[in-house]
């Protein structure tokens, strides 16, 4: 059976409403103390207050900015290194073992190193966000280059294309679907690490806002912050899915 898009949207909204309903029931019967879990109504009042009065806006922007900066920087680094590995077996031989050593390291293990090297500052957060979110896109780029249609490699040879021309005219366009998928994964990682970075450095942002709310038993503000973080993830993912569709129009 083929489901229509409208039905999918209706089901998606219904899922969210059911979750809100359960949340409401749990809190109205006080299965969990309201000190720790306020009801949806109180949370959304806090969210509304934060947005209308503007207290939450600078924090939200700061987190989005931190996430996007790190993500874009990671993407550029990943695509550049990935392309290099993709076209040069020498570069692959040099870089692969190092990358395979660094890749499994948890980003959290890098944090103390980053603190020691650049200090407890926004630079440290940027470094950690880039380090953690570079991998999905890097692996995707390498994968995309490794799976260029052999016939197209021949076409590039027949046309005597330079290595640079091959990268930009065949290798990268061929890797774009993989790269976009990698960048979507990277963005989620970037958001997580941006918040972790804020928790550690106390820089302005939603992570810091949530931490303060929790320490001061402002449960409604705490959940308002978490909802905003969820919305950032949701919106950015849908935005990228939309971009995917436009960029990959040739896939029909």
């Amino acid at each position, binding site marked *: 059976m083929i489901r229509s898009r409208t039905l999918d949207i209706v089901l998606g909204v219904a899922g969210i409403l059911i979750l809100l309903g359960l949340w409401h029931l749990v809190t109205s019967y006080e299965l969990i103390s309201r000190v720790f879990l306020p009801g949806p109504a109180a949370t959304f009042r806090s969210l509304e207050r934060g947005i209308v009065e503007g207290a939450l806006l600078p924090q939200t922007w700061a987190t989005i900015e931190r996430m996007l900066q790190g993500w874009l920087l990671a993407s550029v680094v990943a695509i550049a290194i990935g392309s290099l590995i993709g076209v040069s077996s020498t570069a692959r031989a040099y870089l692969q073992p190092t990358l395979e050593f660094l890749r499994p390291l948890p980003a959290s293990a890098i944090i103390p190193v980053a603190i020691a090297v650049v200090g407890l500052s926004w630079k440290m957060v940027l470094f950690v966000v880039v380090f953690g979110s570079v991998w999905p896109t890097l692996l995707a780029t390498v994968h995309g280059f490794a799976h260029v249609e052999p*016939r*197209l490699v021949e*076409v590039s040879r*027949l046309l*005597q294309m330079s290595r640079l021309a091959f990268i930009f005219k065949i290798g990268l*366009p*061929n890797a774009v679907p993989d790269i976009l998928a990698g960048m979507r994964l990277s963005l989620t990682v970037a958001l997580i690490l941006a918040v972790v970075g804020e928790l550690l450095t106390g820089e302005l942002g939603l992570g810091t806002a949530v931490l303060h709310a929790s320490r001061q038993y402002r449960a409604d503000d705490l959940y308002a912050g978490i909802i905003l973080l969820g919305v950032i993830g949701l919106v950015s993912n849908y935005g990228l899915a939309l971009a995917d569709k436009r960029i990959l129009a*040739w*896939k*029909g």
Partner: protein
Amino acid sequence: MTAARNAIELKEVSLSFGSNQILTGIDMRVEPGEFICVIGASGSGKTTLLRMIAGLLTPTSGAVLLHGKPVRSPSRRVAVVFQDYGRALLPWRRAYANVSLPLEAGGMPASQRPARIRELLAKVGLGNHEDKFPGQLSGGMQQRLQIARALAQEPDTLLMDEPFGALDAMTRQTLQDEVLRLVSERKTTVFFVTHDIEEALYLGDRVVALDSNPGRVAYDIKVPLPRPRDQLTTREHPEFLRLRREMFEIMNKIHA
């Protein structure tokens, strides 16, 4: 005055992969502007031969010469049309940009490209499809696009590897006539690989038949049919029918 150099010359060309002998002692001369068709069963090494002329493969022994010069690597003076148009075209580039690729590679200034690209697309009947992606075109149209891309190189020599093998009979005939028209305009030398005897006779000035295991020249005949050729009158021509019978008998003997 020395005689005009051969467009393609193969001297005692052999190729083996390990102990596997693919081609042995191939001698062949193709004059400039000549349309030569190479037929043979699958495994006779006809595609391999084409790839050596293209500079994609190096013979184990012997020499491949283009206009008297040994082939060491591919040259933009030689264009190749592959059978699998679906893989040979860039799927993310529209028809227009696919034709643009050889012009970019050849360093043509961007300002001169649009006119040239539109001229080529019009020539192969794709004038109204420049904004389509290959995936949105029929098989015949994709093959036309690949031919336009090959012509964009302004090649002296056009190598075609069973280009119409994947197309239906009607489309194949239309494209045969288009290729004849396009290459006669520029006096291009054509090396056309096929396994279809009638196609070889219809298109070629000469037909070379390859024997298999290892591939070697079994037969080399001139096709003295008048040009321009016509799908009805040429195929009904007594000489066409006689050659067709002769070729069938040769191929049967080879594969007996």
